[in-house]
């Protein structure tokens, strides 16, 4: 049987309207979501099918102290340098230690914003989410007041997520509790590092990060 595919005028009109409004079909969204940003941390890259999802916001929860949040942050900075890109770090309460990166050249790729409040962090995040120069945007909210974070309206996070999607960047939010409703992927760091680990090689420690998916990612789909 010879099947002919024809497009009705209504379909054409609908597609034109979608293009004008910037509405994407499910297939297009799946294609975009297929792109990943490798972290060079085997555990995370395997779990998420290659790396952090591009055009999306990933929330990484490190609820306990010394569970690897700062180690992960430094790994992300290093991976951006390897990709020859720029990374922006929005540091809610000015906790980042530039003297703790493995190589000072990494700092050349880093744009660090030292905020003093959660509100300031969100404003800066909004601005940076629309700047195409940054391959990765990291928002460190680990020390932010949890009540303030809980009081942020969900639509603000969704608006931020839309800006990330529109401008094609990758964004990571480090939090102490699962708090971002718009996060496409949510991971939790559960390993506890010990004093003796301070004498071990950093690269080796990065392989021991215990990452559990809470939302999104291949692993979660596998679990479901």
């Amino acid at each position, binding site marked *: 049987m010879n099947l002919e595919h024809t497009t009705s005028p209504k379909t054409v009109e609908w597609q034109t309207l979608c293009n004008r409004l910037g509405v994407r079909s499910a297939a297009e969204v799946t294609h975009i979501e297929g792109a990943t940003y490798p972290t060079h941390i085997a555990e995370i890259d395997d779990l998420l099918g290659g790396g952090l999802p591009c055009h999306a916001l990933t929330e990484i929860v490190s609820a306990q102290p010394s569970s690897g949040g700062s180690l992960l942050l430094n790994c992300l900075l290093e991976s951006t340098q390897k990709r020859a890109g*720029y990374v922006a770090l929005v540091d809610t309460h000015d906790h980042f230690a530039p003297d703790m990166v493995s190589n000072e050249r990494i700092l050349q790729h880093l744009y660090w914003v030292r905020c003093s409040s959660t509100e300031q962090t969100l404003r800066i995040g909004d601005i940076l989410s629309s700047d195409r120069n940054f391959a990765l945007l990291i928002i460190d909210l680990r020390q932010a007041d949890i009540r303030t974070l809980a009081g942020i309206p969900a639509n603000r996070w969704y608006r931020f997520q839309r800006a990330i999607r529109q401008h094609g960047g990758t964004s990571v939010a480090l939090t102490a509790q699962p708090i971002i409703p718009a996060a496409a992927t949510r991971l939790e760091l559960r390993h506890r590092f010990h004093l003796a680990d301070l004498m071990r090689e950093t690269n080796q420690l990065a392989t021991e990060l215990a990452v559990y998916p809470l939302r999104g990612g291949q692993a979660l789909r596998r679990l479901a």
Partner: protein
Amino acid sequence: MYAVIEIPVMALQAIYRLKRKRPSGPIAILDETGQRSIVCEVNHVARGEQVEVGMCPAQALARCGTLQVLPRSLEAESTVARLLLLLAQTLSPRVEQTAFGIVTVDLRGIRMHTVEASADALVDRLKELRLHARIGISDTPEHARWSALFAKPVLYVQRLDNFLKRVPLAVAGASEDLLDILKGWGIHDMAALHDLPREEIGNRLGQRGLALWDTVAGRQPRLLQLTETKPQFRRSLEFEHRVESLEALLFILKRFVDELALELELAQSAAYILKVRLKLEDKSYETKLIEVPEPSSRARTLFRILETALDGLQTKDSIIGVQLHLEATEAHGKQGDLFSVAMEDPVAFAETADRIATIVGPGRSGSPRMRDTWRPDAFRLQTLDSELEARGESVENASDTADSYRGLPLSRFRPPRTIKVCVERSKPVRIDSGEYAGAIRAAAGPWALSGEWWEPAPWTREEWDIELEEGGVFRIFRQRSYWYLEGIYG
């Protein structure tokens, strides 16, 4: 081949450019430069109300009670004439300023299909500058001038005989008596005149008739008196009314930037500093110097930088005048290095950085660099470089160093938090910082650190790395008998 670019009703259009909203209804432009004020231009609505050029204001208002009479602005017209001249030079360097608002361009040696496309683009660029123009293209300057009168907005005369049938004799610029004679013969358009034998015209009308016939036939095209233009990177305006909002100021600056970008383009230059000088009502001046991160000649980019820099501008008095001056440098084409890291849009980043600095304050954003000292947490912030060195080298070095790097990174508290520490046998056994408290499972230290003894404020401290029973690895230190929590490892 020649092109004539004309801006019809130029005085009106020059005035329209000054207004944020284009005025509607019957409008007349009043020329007050002579001994008596007369109407020098009217729009089509006013013309429909029988208001004519040459009337005095009282006569014009008597014809149309709702007539808006606007004063002529010679300054605005000069700007329009200059813009026209600059844009005409994008077609060819051989340009003549034929009249105020009319330029003739010598297109000989230029391919016609290129000219037609350029003419359309030129009309669009003039529209962006809020000017409506018409362009006529033909074999001689005169024919081009006449074709501009019929252009909508571009007319390229390919068949002269057909075109001449449309052109009345009156536009040829001949004297009244000569025109009357020709009308008496039944000659009303140029094609009819062109059909008459040249010698017979010469016998009956003499030299004047021959000159007219030659002009119509395109026998003796006149030589153009070429005009040279020097780039001017400065624009200024004194306001009629004082300006109290940024929006109104930006409207004027947008116009300036559009005009100056054109000057830059033609001079093959790029602006690297924007200097805005505001004249205030108390006769004082306020100047703002704005550095352009990547020299540019693009109007949109320059205006975006200007807009960001002036955001939140406060002056001590109302603004009554503004001047914009550009410092220009030679525009360099740049080819990207295959192995270097470069920003996609450095200008956009400069704008982003400005906005961020406004929110977080100075010295709170940038790219960190370590200071040459052993003092903990000694760093400085500098502007993020828009271009970095070769990728291969940096990655290679990065991996070498990363392999040998040991330990967990620290998340610092700035400033370090004061804590209570129980010490037994010179070793901390318990801490209490409020948020983090409990017995210490393991401790490593002490590490005595000191430095800058030659400075007025030398530093010395005793550091410990500790792990709490409940979990968590921390760095604490003792300085002048006080204990501090410096950060959390991990």
